């Protein structure tokens, strides 16, 4: 049996899956103490089932997201080695930042050596300012990590208690500013995340569950919980990933659908294209920071059931704020939920108060409460539909760097609009109609997140870069680089090497799944030519285990 738990901001959901069916589910309020809500949900879902029957537990949590957004972490000092390029004015990250001289180029060749004295000064200044966490990040450190290692070693030598993170170990993709942010946030959240992981493992074992425990990442893949402490920020936005996977599991394979999760103040959108969730082309953004975290393409629209609605002149306008519950439930202002109540599309709250709310909006414009309610609903529907269209257009307009990519560009539109979340019932059918698609509200929609967590599979990827002229190769995800002195290294050997590393990573993460299917995401070979003679090759190879879900959910089970 599989367990999925989604620890959200308001509710903690849990489901118990048994042979592809939802055997039990639970929904409890999320309390200040995450762990107790987690256990409460777990106990409800597990009623009458012994812990040793559980084969796997997957968690999704907003914990790290909230830590970052609420800035509840210790300050991190930055030692940056950007070298020439963009003006150093661009590197202002609202924290103690020390820029030291030194530079690598795009092929990892040192172009400016580290200056020892300035490095020492920066380290001393950081310590004087009281930083206990330090991130060391160099431009092109994924091509050559020597400078980062030197600085980190010196830091550790002088201040053994200092927690040091190096850029090349956190994110290997190109984009120095994003690497700085990813490293800084990793450094900032690691300690609290480790504590969280420890308590989860302890709590589960108290309930007699000693099955492997995983955590859901922003890209919809999972990591074994104990190993995830290396990369806490990979868990940001696991909530939207969970609901997307949940919908994927609850709808037939191969569909192109939009996932619309209408909550109180926001509506979260995600795309499933021909059966698989769309990944964002760039790393996730959090709290105004751009990171390297691979994430599903999700979009949050600031409109929900509790958004306040106001008449301004002859217009009715929806604001992105929430001022408490809807008017029909005793709130201060009219909301879309009141409109739904008037139209009979929900049974929440008091109908008379809802009418009163719509009347206050509509009367000055000569509208009946029903007409005003219609107007409000249409505003919500139009806003969300427009955002959905925009998501498709943006996906179509993503840059392409190869001829075949440009020619491959697809134009796709959803065949279904799948609603989950509180406000779904009232709005989904009309949003679907606007888009010319079928509305679907799947069974178990209220716990779709937990289902998504339960069916998520581990994913692993490896990006190999070989530079035969310089004689080295590196594995981006591991921050690993090693000499390679085979001038005749072939593309096949490069593919084999990448697959070998994928296997190694699987072992390291305790995933005893055999790496049988290796998906090649990118394979590129560039000849290096000097004076019309080929002097070397650059191989750029990206492989991963296939993305997907455990299976689709059949009928049966019940929601408690």
């Amino acid at each position, binding site marked *: 049996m599989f367990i999925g738990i989604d620890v959200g901001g308001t509710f903690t959901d849990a489901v118990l899956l048994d042979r592809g069916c939802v055997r039990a589910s639970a929904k409890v309020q999320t309390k200040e103490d995450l762990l107790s809500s987690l256990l409460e949900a777990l106990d409800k879902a597990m009623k009458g089932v012994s812990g040793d029957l559980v084969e796997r537990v997957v968690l999704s949590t907003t914990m790290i997201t909230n830590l970052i957004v609420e800035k509840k972490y210790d300050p991190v000092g930055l030692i940056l080695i950007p070298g020439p390029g*963009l003006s*150093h004015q661009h590197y202002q990250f609202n924290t103690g930042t020390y820029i030291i001289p030194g530079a690598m180029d*795009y092929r990892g060749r040192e172009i400016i050596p580290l200056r020892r004295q300035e490095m020492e000064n920066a380290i001393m200044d950081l310590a004087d300012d009281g930083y206990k966490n330090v991130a060391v990040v160099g431009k*092109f450190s994924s091509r050559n990590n020597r400078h980062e290692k030197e600085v980190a070693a010196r830091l550790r030598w002088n201040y053994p208690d200092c927690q040091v993170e190096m850029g090349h170990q956190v994110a290997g993709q*190109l984009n120095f500013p994003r690497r700085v942010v990813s490293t800084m946030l990793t450094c900032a959240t690691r300690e609290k995340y480790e504590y969280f992981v420890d308590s989860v493992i302890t709590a589960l074992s108290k309930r007699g569950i000693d099955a492997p425990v995983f955590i859901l990442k922003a890209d919809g893949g999972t990591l074994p919980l104990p190993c995830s402490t290396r990369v806490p920020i990979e868990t940001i936005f696991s909530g939207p990933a969970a609901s997307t996977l949940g919908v994927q599991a609850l709808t037939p394979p191969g569909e192109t659908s939009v996932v619309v999760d209408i909550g109180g103040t926001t509506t979260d959108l995600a795309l499933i294209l021909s059966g698989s969730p769309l990944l964002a082309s760039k790393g996730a953004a959090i709290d105004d920071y751009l990171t390297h975290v691979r994430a599903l393409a999700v979009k949050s629209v600031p409109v929900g059931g509790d958004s306040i609605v106001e008449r301004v002149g002859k217009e009715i306008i929806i604001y992105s704020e929430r001022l408490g519950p809807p008017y029909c439930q005793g709130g201060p202002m009219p909301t879309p939920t009141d409109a739904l109540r008037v139209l009979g599309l929900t049974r929440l709250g008091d109908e008379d108060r809802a009418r009163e709310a719509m009347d206050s909006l509509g009367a000055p414009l000569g509208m009946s409460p029903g007409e005003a309610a219609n107007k409000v609903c249409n505003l919500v529907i139009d806003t969300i539909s427009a955002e959905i269209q925009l998501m498709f257009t943006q996906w*179509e307009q993503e*840059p392409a760097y190869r*001829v075949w990519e*440009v020619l491959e560009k697809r134009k796709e539109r959803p065949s279904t609009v799948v609603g989950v979340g509180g406000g779904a019932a009232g709005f989904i059918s009309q949003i679907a109609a606007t888009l010319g698609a079928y509305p679907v509200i799947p069974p178990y929609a209220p716990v779709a997140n937990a289902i998504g967590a339960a069916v998520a599979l581990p994913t692993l990827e490896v990006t190999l870069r070989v530079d035969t002229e310089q004689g080295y190769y590196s594995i981006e995800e591991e921050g690993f680089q090693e000499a390679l002195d085979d001038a005749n290294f072939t593309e096949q050997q490069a593919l084999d090497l990448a697959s070998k590393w994928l296997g190694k990573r699987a072992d390291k993460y305790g995933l005893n799944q055999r790496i049988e299917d290796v998906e090649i995401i990118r394979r590129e070979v*560039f000849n290096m030519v000097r004076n019309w003679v080929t002097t070397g090759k650059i191989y750029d190879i990206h492989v991963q285990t296939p993305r997907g879900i455990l299976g689709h959910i059949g009928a049966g089970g019940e929601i408690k």
Partner: protein
Amino acid sequence: MEKKTGLIFFPAFDWAISPTHPEREERLLYTRDQIFEEGVMDLPQIREYAPRLASLHDIARVHFCVPRVQSQVTEAHLIAAGSALQLGDAVVSGEIKNGFAMVRPPGHHAMRTVHGNRGFCNINNEAVLVDYLRRRHGLKRIAIIDSDVHHGDGTQDIFYHDPDVLFISFHQDGRTIFPGTGFSHELGGPQAYGTTLNVPMPPGIGDETLEYIVDNLIVPVIKDFNPDFIINSAGQDNHYSDPLGSMRFTARGYADFTRKLNPDMAVLEGGYAIETALPYLNLAIILALARLDYSYVLEPDYWPGRFTENAERASKVHRTVDYLRDVWEKRNSADIDNIFGKGNFYQRKKFIYYDTDYIEEEQIEKVKKCSNCTGYLLVESRGERGYRAPVRIFAVTVPFSACEACQQEAYDAYHQAKKKEQYDYVYMQDKSLDTCLNYERDKNHEWSTEG
């Protein structure tokens, strides 16, 4: 907030002329590494666009491709040209303040008639953009400044008789480098005298002299000309580390030039120092277009004061600049009949060598000297590839501003030529109606495309 700078980065990582040719997959690889690592695409001043394909008609509006457009373009060519159009649309609509199409393959050696590839080019991206902007958006006057080390002979050829297109090229002296043209006496035809300006430079010239050319020729002439749109044909092989050129410009020099020129769009041309120059140059040009600080961009082997200008060579360039300024200022009072001869037509004979495809072309170009419009153009061309019978074509261009009489005469010439045995293909390019015709004798068939 100030408008953004639009970028299309289309490195065509899967397109090359041949595996060891300078124009190959690897060319923009290190540029990609540099601009991606710098996080350029994330800057709030930058907006990245996806490329699109130019249509065959967009190409036919500019070129006479032999035998037809499809046989001279690969998809990569359509994407490179289409990228320029995509950004052109965005600039004209006001979505962005300027744009940089960092694309391959390049195009400024592609002339009006295309028998094959010369100077790594088949399709002239800037020319396709110019005629598209005029046709689609109704722009009239356009300036193209070519900063490639090689003379932009294709662009010059296409607009040589067009008074509404100002073409200025500075480049290494044609006696020392491909394509061997671009001398200061090439000033445009009788209908467009003075709107082509060439500054040939002796090898070894650096930033200081470039600044002189910009301040004393390019900026004042553009100001006079008052164009609706400025395009930089942004070749980067004037860089001191370029393997094909022998000049000494730096990334900083190129960026200063870009800042002063302030073009609406830059379109990448040559530049083959793919490791030592391109990553730094492209970054500096992007920053200059976005009006960001580019003073931190430095080539690893450069230090201020590394190059000093050779006074004698520099003064040679100064003299050329003075001469061209003079031509420009007196262009309207020049004695055209004395320069080009009397008669209804001006005719010139051209021999064009296609260095990449080993084709020899002989061409006679005639322009109608019309006082009501810029005059139509007749081209008779014979392309010879060693191993097969030469291809002979006859082509007619009707300009955007054609008067009725010229249009009539041009169509007469086209229909006459269709009857003549000696031409394998006959073309009509009517820019005023945006219609292109292509007649193939063997099949006795006429194709047409319309915008």
